[in-house]
């Protein structure tokens, strides 16, 4: 009999896991709460560092996982442990008995309006990284005025590394995303001055540092080390940003037509809810807690329950895909070991 594996979350981790499980001859079931697959990536435009269209990745993933059983618009109603398996009740009334659950519930974007001093939701000229990515995709955003684009700012670490926002963790991808988006905006508005306000630039990944040098040298993006302290609006409807240029040791101010807030990754409340049903531990950063953070990132302390992707902490797309494959291999080894 083909082993059933329930995948909670139809983002890229869930899709990649389903596709690999299908190749190994198993029968994966994807439970997705929204009406579409792909999660956050389905609304993104291009992926660093190669500027791959997000849609290309997604269509490939959806194509290769199409033989999985997929339930859209479906949530987990309840979950309980049987002798050596789990009984999962779905919101559509279906119940599934399985020995293996893969949690791929991902992250949620930090709600930028919580940082009131940045003016998201107050000033029309203030948008988030996700808003900008949607605008790259569909060109529809009433807040972005194409004709008036002389100065644009990016604020790094919005809701990340911020104890008061209750997120001490670094969201990892925002530095490189800001640089990517700054370059994309400079390409659209070559005459605009673009400023990145950062605390640190954490360009850890392959090709990320090249992106930084390119942004400086080829695109003339201005990097200002200092956290934005407040944003206000002037009489012409532009936003004034104040910060300290900590490298110059002086306060700095600039008037902008558009301000992009790099909202960080925070734990998805749906992950926490699902984890609560099985009494799975939550880490101090709010994300799901792996068995350990070096050797068993994809394992939970409960037998048969595995994790992949950003449900255990901020991850890039390639890291998420690699973790999905890794979790599938662990499940596969476990099944083979029992035969």
């Amino acid at each position, binding site marked *: 009999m083909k082993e059933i594996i329930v995948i909670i979350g139809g983002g890229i981790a869930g899709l990649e896991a389903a596709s690999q499980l299908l190749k190994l001859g198993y029968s994966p079931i994807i439970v997705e709460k929204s009406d579409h697959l792909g999660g956050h990536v389905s609304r993104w435009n291009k992926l660093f560092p190669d500027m791959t269209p997000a849609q290309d990745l997604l269509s490939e993933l959806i194509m290769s996982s199409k033989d999985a059983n997929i339930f859209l618009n479906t949530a987990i109603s309840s979950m309980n442990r049987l002798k050596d398996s789990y009984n999962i009740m779905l919101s559509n009334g279906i119940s599934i008995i399985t020995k293996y659950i893969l949690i791929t519930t991902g992250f949620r974007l930090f709600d930028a309006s919580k940082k009131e001093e940045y003016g998201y939701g107050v000033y029309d000229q203030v948008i988030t990284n996700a808003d900008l990515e949607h605008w790259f995709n569909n060109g529809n955003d009433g807040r972005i005025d194409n004709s008036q684009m002389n100065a644009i700012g990016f604020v790094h670490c919005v809701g990340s590394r911020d104890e008061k926002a209750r997120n001490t963790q670094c969201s990892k991808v925002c530095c490189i995303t800001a640089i990517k988006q700054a370059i994309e905006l400079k390409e659209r508005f070559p005459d605009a001055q673009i*400023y990145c306000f950062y605390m640190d630039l954490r360009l850890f990944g392959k090709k990320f540092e090249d992106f930084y*040098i390119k942004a400086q*040298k080829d695109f*003339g993006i201005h990097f200002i080390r200092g956290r934005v302290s407040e944003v206000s609006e002037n009489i012409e409807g532009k936003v004034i940003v104040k910060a300290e240029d900590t490298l*110059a040791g*002086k306060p*700095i*101010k600039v*008037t902008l037509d558009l301000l992009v807030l790099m909202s960080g990754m925070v734990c998805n409340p749906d992950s926490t809810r699902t984890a609560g049903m099985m009494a799975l531990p939550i880490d101090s950063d709010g994300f799901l807690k792996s068995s350990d953070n070096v050797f068993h990132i994809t394992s939970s302390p409960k037998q048969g329950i595995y994790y992949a992707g950003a449900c255990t902490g901020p991850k890039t797309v390639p890291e998420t895909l690699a973790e999905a494959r890794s979790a599938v291999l662990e499940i596969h080894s476990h099944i083979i070991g029992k035969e």
Partner: protein
Amino acid sequence: MNVFGFKISPSSAIDMDKVDRARFEELCRVEPDAVRCMACGSCSATCPASAFSGMSIRKVLLMLQRGKEKDAFRMMRNCMLCGKCTMVCPRGINTRHLILSICRIYDDKEGKQ
């Protein structure tokens, strides 16, 4: 006698709206590496003039981009052109050549002080 009080002092704040970028852009045309500095501080750490005069090519580059051209030029006059900063720069910026270009571009217009 009033022991507490403050007097009006000129603002040292940077206003990016008022920065005239013309000369820095001219500099970048001859020295494209001028914008590649990542403010690591290797140059100032090794600079023999730094300890005595506060000379720092990193700070000079930053001040030029923040519209503080006079301050930058004043600081530059402490440079002895020894070239140690060029040897240590991790991004391979030819700082010595850059300093000479700054002298040339900013000097004639700024006027000798």
